[in-house]
């Protein structure tokens, strides 16, 4: 109990004093996860909307695949990206392994199915309501796609948020492709795992606290945006 209290006290001190090592890890974590969310959003939103609107052979299989890949194990994604980026792999010449870029790639692959699957469901529900009206306007499915994404923009924040949650919390993929190298690829989750194994609970707890605070802040911001939109009848 004493250890725990002492660890909490030290962790609070590290956060308040803006310990340089701590700040570096937090900033890298944010850079990696937000970049991955941005890239996965660029791919996942149109992909999910397209699967919702178009009918094509294999569509049902693709929907099942997207839904199943929402639970893709991070270590498996990490392993695949590792094999692709390693010296012997097809993309080895780029020398990306054990860099933040490799971590962004792994997290992007991890969260594209989450954003795409949730977008597909949201847009499909909306399409049921809008299809007749938009077709009456003369809008093809291709023209309807950006319209529906815009109409669902506040609901889709939840899909993006789920992607961010997954990216910021996962440890397996970034550990494998990043290597947890100090001052290079060490992010909050990998640092927590390392510090716990070393017995330095203070830094691990401080990082854990910041991770939870970041998650709370982002969720609160999205909630406020959605609530304001709802009150203005925009969602």
């Amino acid at each position, binding site marked *: 109990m004493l250890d725990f209290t002492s660890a909490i006290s030290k962790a609070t001190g590290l956060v308040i004093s803006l310990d340089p090592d701590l700040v570096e890890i937090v900033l890298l974590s944010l850079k990696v996860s937000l970049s991955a969310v941005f890239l996965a959003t660029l791919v996942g939103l149109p992909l999910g909307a397209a699967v919702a609107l178009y009918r094509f052979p294999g569509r049902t299989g693709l929907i099942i695949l997207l839904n199943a890949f929402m639970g893709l194990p991070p270590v498996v994604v990490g392993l695949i990206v590792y094999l692709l980026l390693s010296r012997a792999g097809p993309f080895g010449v780029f020398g990306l392994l054990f860099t933040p870029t490799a971590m962004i790639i792994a997290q992007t692959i991890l969260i594209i199915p989450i954003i795409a699957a949730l977008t597909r469901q949201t847009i499909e529900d909306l399409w049921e309501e809008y299809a007749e*009206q938009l077709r*009456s*306007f*003369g809008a093809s499915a291709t023209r309807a796609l950006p*319209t529906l994404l815009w109409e669902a923009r506040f609901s889709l924040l939840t899909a993006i948020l789920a992607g961010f949650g997954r990216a910021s919390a996962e440890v397996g993929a970034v550990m494998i492709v990043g290597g947890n190298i100090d001052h290079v690829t060490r992010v909050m989750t990998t640092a927590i795992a390392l510090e716990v194994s070393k017995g330095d609970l203070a830094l691990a707890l401080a990082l854990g606290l910041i991770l939870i605070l970041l998650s709370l802040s982002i969720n609160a911001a999205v909630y406020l945006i959605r609530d304001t939109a709802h009150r203005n*009848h925009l969602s």
Partner: protein
Amino acid sequence: MSKPSILPLELDNVTYAVSGKPLVRDVSVSLAKDTRTIILGPNGAGKSLLLRLCHGLIAPSAGKIRWQGKSDQNPAHHQAMVFQRPVMLRRSAAANIAYVLALHRIPKAERKDLIDEALALAGLSDLANRPARVLSAGEQQKLALARAWVTKPQVLFLDEPTASIDPAATYAVENTIETIHAHGTKIIMTTHDLGQARRLADEVLFFHQGRMIEQTPARTFFGQPKSALGQAFLRGELLWQEDGDAN
């Protein structure tokens, strides 16, 4: 000089069936320009389906629908439809109209005047910047009319546009429909409201159980309908027969 008309609209033995059950049966009719055509009949008569068939939202199971006018342009670009419960986009009233103009590739510089004109026609100028979904049901229906009319369609399909609104809003919507017709748009509208049909119709298509029972000038229909079913409908009788006398 006015554009060549896409009308008349001709239906040739049009049938629409779902799972083998015909919901619209062997309808043959010619609809001329200028007149206000009211499709009248009890619930389940196939009125709304007929509008959707004519507007191209659904395809007939059998028969042909032809726009027989002299225009060589795509008829789909010269018609619009207002639904009983129109979907309002999650944006302002003006932006709802702007969306349709953008779809029709109207240059941006021309859009503001057209939006203002359409909003004024519907009496919604003061609500231009209000989110469309905040508007009352009657205001939303007027906005739907303005949105449909903004591209100056030659034909406007209206599917029971006043079924979900109160009498005051109904009066305003009917006035807007009259104004749109006065601007040269052919009106094809469904209703099961006899009073509304009397107020608005130039000709009546009377439907029952998916069949067109008669096509009659409004004055004749409300004076002396040709069919026994039409006479019974005007007397306020409930029409539930499996197969009515079509003559």
